[in-house]
């Protein structure tokens, strides 16, 4: 499409301004992680560090014990992702392809449920987990995370299963192949992109979740990254250098995921089902 030159110029200016606006706060966190404490607390601030140091990274993993937070987050997020893919792909397939009565109301119900704020269930879940003796355990987070991420995964996967030509399913069914085999051997491989999308969304949601992690797993050894970072600010001053050093380490794996899976993330975001 031919368009006036001024509009192209405006487009570039807005785009670059927008990207810089996103990155500037991030830049500030990045350089602060490498500044000595004296510079972190200096005013006027040094926009570019005068001295660079790795001491905050050493401190984060030594004195502040950031390592276990990362381990806990990885265990919880990876387990949740696998459970969601397992249950979500089956349910998504059934809702897309099998003659189950009341599919449309069920899909709406799932959508509404996925929108409920966590605060709505936190008190009963807490008394329940406490009575079971499950507070400060991995399952205290894995089970609720699975439940909260399943509706969205079912939606995404159902959309992918709907796109597989119906003839393929009928051909397999008439052949006498069992429905489960049809699902595992024919449908699941075709819908790998859907699995990627659901996996990245579930992983990011579990990795970033805060309220459940804060109230269910508050003991120091069971904290996930968000809880560890939120409760860092203890004693007299906030140890920003250490907080940002730990933050950067926990941001890297997610940015790698984003770079690799960006296409699937965008397709997930734009499928009408929108989750932040």
């Amino acid at each position: 499409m031919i368009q006036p030159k001024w509009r192209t110029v405006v487009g570039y200016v807005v785009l670059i301004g927008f990207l810089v606006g996103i990155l500037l706060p991030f830049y500030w966190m990045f350089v602060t992680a490498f500044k000595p404490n004296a510079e972190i607390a200096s005013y006027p601030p040094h926009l570019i560090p005068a001295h660079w140091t790795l001491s905050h990274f050493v401190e984060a993993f030594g004195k502040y014990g950031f390592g276990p937070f990362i381990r806990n987050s990885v265990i919880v997020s990876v387990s949740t992702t696998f459970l969601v893919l397992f249950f979500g792909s089956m349910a998504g397939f059934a809702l897309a392809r099998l003659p189950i009565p009341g599919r449309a109301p069920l899909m709406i119900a799932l959508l509404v449920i996925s929108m409920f704020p966590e605060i709505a269930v936190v008190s009963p879940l807490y008394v329940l987990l406490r009575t079971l003796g499950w507070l400060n355990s991995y399952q205290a987070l894995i089970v609720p995370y699975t439940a909260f991420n399943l509706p969205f995964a079912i939606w995404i996967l159902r959309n992918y299963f709907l796109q597989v030509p119906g003839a393929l399913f009928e051909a397999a069914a008439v052949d006498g192949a069992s429905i489960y085999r049809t699902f595992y051997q024919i449908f699941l491989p075709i819908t790998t992109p859907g699995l990627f999308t659901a996996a990245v969304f579930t992983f990011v949601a579990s990795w970033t979740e805060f309220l459940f992690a804060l109230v269910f797993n508050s003991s120091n050894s069971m904290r996930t990254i968000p809880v560890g970072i939120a409760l860092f600010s203890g004693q007299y001053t906030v140890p920003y250098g250490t907080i940002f050093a730990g933050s950067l380490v926990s941001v890297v794996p997610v940015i790698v995921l984003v770079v690799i899976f960006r296409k699937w993330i965008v397709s997930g975001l734009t499928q009408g089902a929108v989750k932040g």
Partner: protein
Amino acid sequence: MKAEVNSTGRSLVGQVRPETLRARQRRAGYGMILPGLIIIGGITIFPILYSVWLSLNNVNLTVNGYQTNFIGLKNYNTLIHVQAFWHSLWFTFYYSVVTVTLELLFGLLIALAINNVQKLKNLSVVVMLIPWSLITVISAQMWNYIYDGVYGVLNYVLQFLHVIGAPVTWLGTPTLAVSAIMVADIWKTTPFVVIIILAGLQMIPTEYYEAARMDGANSWQVFWSIIFPQLRGSIALAGLFRILQAFGVFDLPFVLTNGGPGNATTSLAILGEQVLFQELHFGTGSAVAVATVLLVLIISLLFLSAFRTLVTEGDSA
């Protein structure tokens, strides 16, 4: 040897009657859906109903369990006479409406401006996804340091630009703290709205624009007659989802202000957490939770027709 035949004389082998196949498929379908539904129901629907029960009780945590003592609507009566509850309700509503409106507006304007930029596409997508994938607590700590009243970089930049004369304690003043949290939210979510709207824009066939140009339509007319009608659905839906999410706002105020100064930034979720886990009033805390659920339900029901369209669109695709 004769093949086995039934009374109608047709072979049974290799023939599946349509009803049986359908019944078999339905049974398999239930088997595939049920595990997921049990997990979802057990962790969302059952607790929501159970919190209604808890909210009608005086709940005491004991060493290895809890005791309930039915007191009817007393917790709700306490709640509606507490000014903090009404304030958190107002704050949550105000916060959700303002942030989501601004995010949609900025998202639309930015997406329209950059829609035709052909270069930097991969880089832009990655950069725009960074705030989305960032742990909210981390971005809250990042803004905490930027807003700091003593050595915050925001004061430095604004003083350098002569916008302010003396350093401002952004998070220590009620109205400024509300705006500061909103800015942090807008920073995190606008890029995500831009991605959604850009995808919508890219699905509009270029012929539409060309035809409109041939007819002599100006940019304004093109926007209102072609672009907006095509985007309306996705904008409305994104807005609804964002509003419902914003209703649960917890992480940003928890880290930045802990609901303060005073109760200026106490959202429903912050109030609920405080009543439940700091005051240990599980009955009253559950009443706050139930109030939140009612609000979300009311909004969802108002938009039920939008949901229904989404399901039917998915079916025809």
